[in-house]
Structures are given as structure tokens and as C-alpha cells.
């Protein structure tokens, strides 16, 4: 174990993975949207956020016109003007300049009330003229106020008009939400989701899938290899033929077609991966097991009358385990890459958030064309960093069984 801690790459990998694990475990507590795991695809959960805005730290002296914070402006007391028959018109005026900009703001208007709610929304433009934005009769219930969104509004004031009719309760004051033009650590995507939150949620699935699948596949490979090498005869031949059969399949195409045809969840992906990935560990371990089988201490074990399986699992397996652990670490990046590759085709598990799926959404919804770099960079970087961390760890573990490396 000491040798591991002397390898710089091993320690670096361990530190990186520790950090990832910490953020993955405690990140949801720090992330601005703690319930996002169950609401990632719930449009109404994200409706008050800005759509496709860059990270907050991109705001600098060169573009200080961009407004960072989301603001909620309440209407205050309305102007009341009487109409015929005792009814009256209530007008709220929202200044669009509470945070210093009047151009191109996305607006969300929240209108509480009960029953049918006629509403007239206009904007007072920069030249002082008023233009109508919406004229609607909304259906509202007390629990769920109506929401109107207006993309990229230019103007000085938003003018909201509602009507007070005798005999029914007076309309409540509406609320204007001005989503920021930059948001959070990593910005938002076109569906208004916070990308940093998605990144944090992705960690657990990447780590879980990578570690679980690589552990099971490598252990399967090792056990089959030892079984083949220590049994010999037709079992040996059979296992080697099965190995050949699976190793001839191009993995990614098979995974794609199987996923496309059977629409799997994350767990069936793991099961499919298991079917193909055990071959990666099998061949090298088999070669080593053949060598170890001929070692003197195995012969010695034989001469004192130990059984074949005792020798295989008490002598050969422990000699191969350190090697197995390094293969495990080294095979994690591939597994994460395959999951991402399946997801980029839109075949991901829609009940979880993975980085591959974020990249699929980004690609499908024009992030490349619209140069929304904050949507494309973080998920890919996380895939890469996680992969590199496991590769470094694997290199460190290689030192343990092969000090020459």
C-alpha cells in the first residue's frame, strides 16, 4: 500500500475522486435548487429562472449592462379609474429599470386570483408610446396563480390592467419577476435549468455506474479467467470461445442497437455493459493466471493435497487481485464514456440526470449553433475529469503490483 502513496498519479487520482465524491454527496445541499433531482424535467419547477443565460462570473466591466440577480417586483397600489356600472379599472405600473437595464429582459408576470381573470398587459416603450403585449382572459385558482412570460422585452414600464367588478373580491396585486441575464456558477440551459445543479446531480450516477459496473465486470472476468486457467480441458476451451465470441462484437454499435430496440433504464444499461465488458479483464488475467499456475508454491500446495478450487481461490486469486483493482480503475472511464455515448443519441434513462443527457439536450437544442458554451463545456469536462481521476488511480494501483512502471 505504501507504494501506492509514493506514486504521484495514484494520490492525485485519489484526491480528485475524493473531491468528486464530496461534491456528489454534499453538493445537493449547496446547489441552489435542492429538489432538482426529482424535478429536472419538470418545466414548472424552473419557470421563474432565466433561459439560456451565461454564468454569473462572465459579468465584468465589459458587459456590466447584464443584470445578475433575479428580481421580484410587487405591484404596490394600483391606479384606479372608474368605469360604467360601478366597475373600475386597476392599473399597475412596473418600472423595468429597478436593476439598471431596460433592454431585452425576459419577464414573468405572476397573476394571483380566483376564477376568470381578464387582463391587459402593455409596455411603455423607450419613446414613451404604449404597446399592447397581451390581452387575455386567464383561468386562475387560488393555489396556482397564472403566469405569463414575455421574452426579451424592451421598454420603460410594464403596464398591467385588471378589472374590479362590484360583488366579487377585488383583484390582487400581480408580481413581476425579472430573471437575471446571468445566473449561478454555470448559467442555465434553454429549458431554464441551472446547469451547476445538473452537474452536481450527474456526479452520483457517473460514480455509481462506473464503480459498480467496473467492479462486477472485472470480478466476472477474473473469476472466469481463473476458472479457465485452473480447470483446463474443455471448460478452458469453452470459456475461451465465449470470450472470443464477445470480443468480436463492436461494443458501441451493439450497445446502441440494444438500447434503441429495448429502451433500457440505467440498470439495464449496466446489465448490458456487464455482458460486453468482462472481456476487457479476461485476457490479461487469463495470461497471468496461466503463469501463476506453474509457480512453485502452487506445485507445493498441490503436493500437500489441497483441492483445485482451494488453490485457485486461495493462491491464484489473491495474487491477481491487485492487478484486478488497477484494471477496475482503468475501465471506469470507458464505462462512463459509453453511457454518455448512448445518452448523446437520446437513449439515456429519463429518470436520472447524467452528463451525457445534458450534452444530448445541448446538442439537440442548438447549443452548438447558438454558441451556448456554458452548456456544452461543463458536462464534457466532468466526464473527462472523472475519467482521468480513475485513470490516475489505476496507474497508482499498477505501481502496487508492478513497481517497475
Amino acid at each position, binding site marked *: 500500500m505504501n507504494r501506492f502513496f509514493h506514486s504521484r498519479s495514484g494520490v492525485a487520482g485519489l484526491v480528485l475522486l475524493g473531491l468528486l465524491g464530496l461534491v456528489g454527496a454534499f453538493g445537493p445541499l449547496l446547489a441552489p435548487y435542492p429538489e432538482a433531482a426529482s424535478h429536472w424535467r419538470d418545466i414548472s419547477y424552473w419557470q421563474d429562472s432565466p433561459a439560456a443565460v451565461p454564468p454569473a462570473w462572465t459579468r465584468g466591466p465589459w458587459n456590466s449592462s447584464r443584470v445578475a440577480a433575479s428580481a421580484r417586483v410587487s405591484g404596490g397600489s394600483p391606479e384606479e379609474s372608474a368605469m360604467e356600472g360601478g366597475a373600475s379599472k386597476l392599473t399597475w405600473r412596473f418600472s423595468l429599470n429597478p436593476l439598471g437595464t431596460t433592454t431585452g429582459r425576459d419577464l414573468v408576470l405572476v397573476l394571483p386570483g380566483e376564477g376568470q381573470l381578464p387582463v391587459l398587459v402593455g409596455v411603455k416603450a423607450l419613446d414613451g408610446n404604449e404597446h399592447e403585449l397581451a390581452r387575455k382572459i386567464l383561468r386562475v385558482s387560488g393555489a396556482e396563480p397564472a403566469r405569463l412570460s414575455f421574452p426579451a422585452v424592451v421598454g420603460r414600464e410594464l403596464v398591467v390592467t385588471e378589472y374590479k367588478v362590484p360583488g366579487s373580491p377585488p383583484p390582487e396585486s400581480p408580481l413581476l419577476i425579472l430573471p437575471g441575464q446571468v445566473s449561478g456558477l454555470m448559467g442555465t440551459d434553454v429549458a431554464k435549468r441551472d446547469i451547476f445543479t445538473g452537474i452536481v446531480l450527474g456526479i452520483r450516477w457517473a460514480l455509481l455506474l462506473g464503480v459498480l459496473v467496473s467492479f462486477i465486470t472485472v470480478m466476472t472476468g477474473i473469476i472466469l479467467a481463473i476458472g479457465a486457467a485452473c480447470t483446463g480441458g474443455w471448460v478452458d476451451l469453452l470459456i475461451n470461445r465465449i470470450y472470443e465470441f464477445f470480443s468480436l462484437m*463492436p461494443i*458501441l454499435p451493439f450497445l446502441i*442497437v440494444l438500447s434503441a430496440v429495448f429502451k433500457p433504464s440505467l440498470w439495464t444499461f449496466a446489465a448490458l455493459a456487464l455482458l460486453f465488458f468482462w472481456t476487457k479483464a479476461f485476457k490479461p488475467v487469463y495470461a497471468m493466471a496461466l503463469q501463476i499456475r506453474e509457480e512453485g508454491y502452487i506445485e507445493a500446495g498441490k503436493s500437500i493435497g489441497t483441492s483445485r478450487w482451494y488453490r485457485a481461490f486461495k493462491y491464484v486469486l489473491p495474487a491477481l487481485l491487485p492487478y484486478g483493482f488497477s484494471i477496475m480503475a482503468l475501465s471506469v472511464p470507458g464505462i462512463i464514456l459509453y453511457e454518455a455515448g448512448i445518452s448523446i*443519441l437520446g437513449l439515456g434513462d429519463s429518470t436520472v440526470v447524467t452528463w451525457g443527457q445534458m450534452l444530448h439536450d*445541448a446538442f439537440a437544442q442548438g447549443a452548438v449553433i447558438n454558441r451556448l458554451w456554458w452548456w456544452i463545456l461543463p458536462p*464534457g469536462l466532468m*466526464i473527462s*475529469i472523472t475519467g482521468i481521476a480513475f485513470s490516475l488511480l489505476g496507474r497508482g494501483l499498477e505501481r502496487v503490483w508492478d513497481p517497475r512502471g
Partner: protein
Amino acid sequence: MKDLLAYYPLRRVLHGLAMYVLLVLALSVVFNQVAEKSLRSQVDEEVVRVLRLSGNLEPAAFDALKASTYGELKSRYHLDESWASRVLWRAADVLSFRFGQSDSLKSASGERSVLGLLLEVLPNTLLLFGSEAILVMALGLVVGLLAARRRGGILDRGLSVLPMFLNGFPPWWIGMLALMALAYALPLFPSGGIQSNPAPAGLRRGFDLLWHLALPLLVLVALNLWGFALQVRNLVVGLVESPWIRAARSRGVPETSILFRHVLAGARPALLTMLVMGLLQSISGNLLIEGIFGWPGIGNLYFIAVQQSDVPVLLGVLAFQTFLNLVGLVGLDLAYRLLDPRVAARDLAGARA
């Protein structure tokens, strides 16, 4: 017969064929249900077409025609037989490259034959990945030899870690970044596809193709070059220590001659293996790159077929790709023996013993 089977190339080809038959059988079993689902709907489609063409018929004649067309089509596709025989027939179809008709995808000439679709896109895939393999080999040789010449130098040390880092990057993600930076932010390259629309004529058509090829090629080469260079470096470092190189050096053979006539000649079989394996791995491992760049090759066909859930195309492409893979591996084995007479000699000695 025994003498014939002792002839290695024949044995290798037969073995490869047997493996292919097994793989196709397995595919046929696993995908039998979905394959037949689209086959049945295609039969329905065909029956409707026949009935429509037959014009106005008496109800009895209509029913008779319907039943007879159904019966004929079902027996043509063996849909009326037992499960085992259906699976075998499906496998036999795939083995004879009869991949059937697509559900909806059409080739440029408007046909729905899956084989036609495949043959249409195959040259594009070979162009992209073939030029990648050649470039990676040429540049990788240079970089690997330079690293081997100065062991422990910056290049050498860089080469020992760079492939590990690059392995973690999803190639298609790098493709997305390259597209965003070099096609949309700075419009240096086209945003995808294989040709401008409308395509220019004559010599400019060739340049147009190269211009479209450049960006995906650049991404592939930049990612895969270093691993190849590292292998070359390790190979050369191992060979340089070998007795015949030392003997040549002590004879006073000039360095360039040692490099080309001794080191590279000795490395030829291994280089060939690396080249072919790299090509095969790249075709199946980097197929998503084609989808990102809209490069109309096999990988892009997966992209489109997945989006349209066109099962016959997916199954056809998969079988075809497995076939290509096997042809590559068997061909590699055979070529290896031509380049390295020692292997053939060892086999021959083994056969005599």
C-alpha cells in the same frame, strides 16, 4: 482434407466465417421479435398497395386477393413457420446480405433497401476513417520516433501521460466544441455534411469535399495521434535494444539506414497491427463523431436510424459492421504472416511436429 486444413490462411478464413455465422445467429435470436414486427408491418403495407392497385373488386374477389397476397408474402418471408425456422431464415437472410427494407429511411436515390443505404454511406466512412488512419500513422511515426530518440525528454514524458488524459475525453464532445469554435464562432469550416449545397463542379468539388472533411479529421487525428505515437515509441525503444540493431550499429551502419532498414523493417508487422486495429476501433468507437458533424457515414446512419427508430436499418448496420470488423481481423492475421515470415515458419514447424 487434413492437408488442406493445415493450410493456415484457409483455416483462419473458415474460423472467421464460423464466428460470423454464430454472431448472426445470436443477433437473429435476440432481435427476432423486433425484426419481425417491422417485417409484418411492411407486409401489411405491401398488401394495402396491391389491393389499391387492383382497382374496384367484388367483395369476394377482394377478400380472396387479400388472403392470397397475405399468404404469398408471409410464406416469402417465412412468417408462417415455427419460431426456430424463422430465426434461421432471418439469420440466412443476413448472412447473404439481404437486410431487407427500411421502415422509413431512404437512400439518395429514393430506395428503401437497407443494403443500398449501407453501400451508399460506406465510402464516406472509409474516407473519413481511412484518412484518419493514414494521418495518425504518418504523424504518429514521426512523433514516436522523435520521442524514442530523446528518451526522458519533454516529448517522451508528455507522450507517457497525454494518451491517458485524452482517453477520458468523449471524442464527440471535442467535436461539438470544435464545431462551436471553428464553424460557428469563427466560420473557418463548414458546419457539417460532406458537401456544400449546391455542390460546386469540377476540381472545386474536390476542394469542397476536403474542406468538409477537414474538421472531423482534425478532431480524430488530434485525439488518436498520441496513443499511436506512444505505441511506436515503446516498439522502437524495445527494438533498439535488440541484438541485430546493436550488431548493425557496431558494423558502422549509418543511423538513417538503421532506422529505415532495421528498426522500421522489424516494426512493420506490429505497425500494421496497430494501424488496422486503430482503424477498426475508430470506425466503431468514434461513430458518434459522424453524427455530430453530420458526416453521412455509417455512424451518422446510426444517429438517424435511432431518431426514427428504424429497426431494420439498425439491425442491418449492426450486422454489416460486425462483418467489416471480422473481415478486418482475419485480413490482419493473414497480412501479418506475409510481413513476418517467422510466424508462418513457426506454424509450419508446429504442423510438422
